[in-house]
């Protein structure tokens, strides 16, 4: 079964600084990879996803992630964070091509942006 490891449970960072949130997944076979963001007291919202093609994926709000098959990683980056980026970030994986496979989430990384 797939599993996802988010190595950092909390990441504090100063406003306008760059940030990287790390994600590693368990399987070396083809996978679909996702990053979701959860703002306080809200549901999850998709930031970006990797299905195939270019390994550098751009998402909303200036975020991007790079798929690295050899390292089974899908780290999320932003060059300059804002206070409004303070939220919980979840990495998730699913197995293609079955549409039945649910998302398997990591335990989340709490990003705190400090003014």
């Amino acid at each position: 079964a797939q599993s996802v490891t988010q190595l950092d449970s909390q990441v504090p960072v100063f406003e306008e600084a760059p940030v990287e949130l790390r994600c590693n997944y368990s399987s070396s076979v083809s996978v679909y990879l996702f990053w979701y963001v959860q703002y306080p007291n809200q549901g999850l919202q998709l930031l970006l996803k990797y299905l195939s093609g270019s390994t550098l994926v751009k998402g909303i709000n200036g975020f991007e992630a790079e798929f690295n098959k050899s390292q089974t990683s899908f780290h999320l980056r932003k060059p300059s964070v804002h206070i409004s980026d303070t939220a919980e970030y979840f990495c998730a994986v699913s197995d293609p091509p079955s549409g039945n496979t649910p998302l398997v989430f990591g335990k989340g990384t709490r990003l705190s942006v400090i003014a």
Partner: protein
Amino acid sequence: DTAVSQTPKYLVTQMGNDKSIKCEQNLGHDTMYWYKQDSKKFLKIMFSYNNKELIINETVPNRFSPKSPDKAHLNLHINSLELGDSAVYFCASSQRRSGETQYFGPGTRLLVL
């Protein structure tokens, strides 16, 4: 317009009670899900329905019973609530095709006293 809505948003109840959470999506999706998020923010799939048919049923106590009257609705009924059921329950929907984005509702915060 809200894409995925859940009611109620908050639910406080006593142990042993039975309660239901409702979910509706207006995105025209054919697949709906229930996730549970515990106090440590860990999200885990509970159930998934495709066109009113149960397709995923993870290891969940049989006190939890999902019901899908049509493909736009997926309700969750919980019998004999226990303290450990306290969590945030999220409904989501997507098209069944692999890799499709799941859209999440705002969550129902359940507190069992």
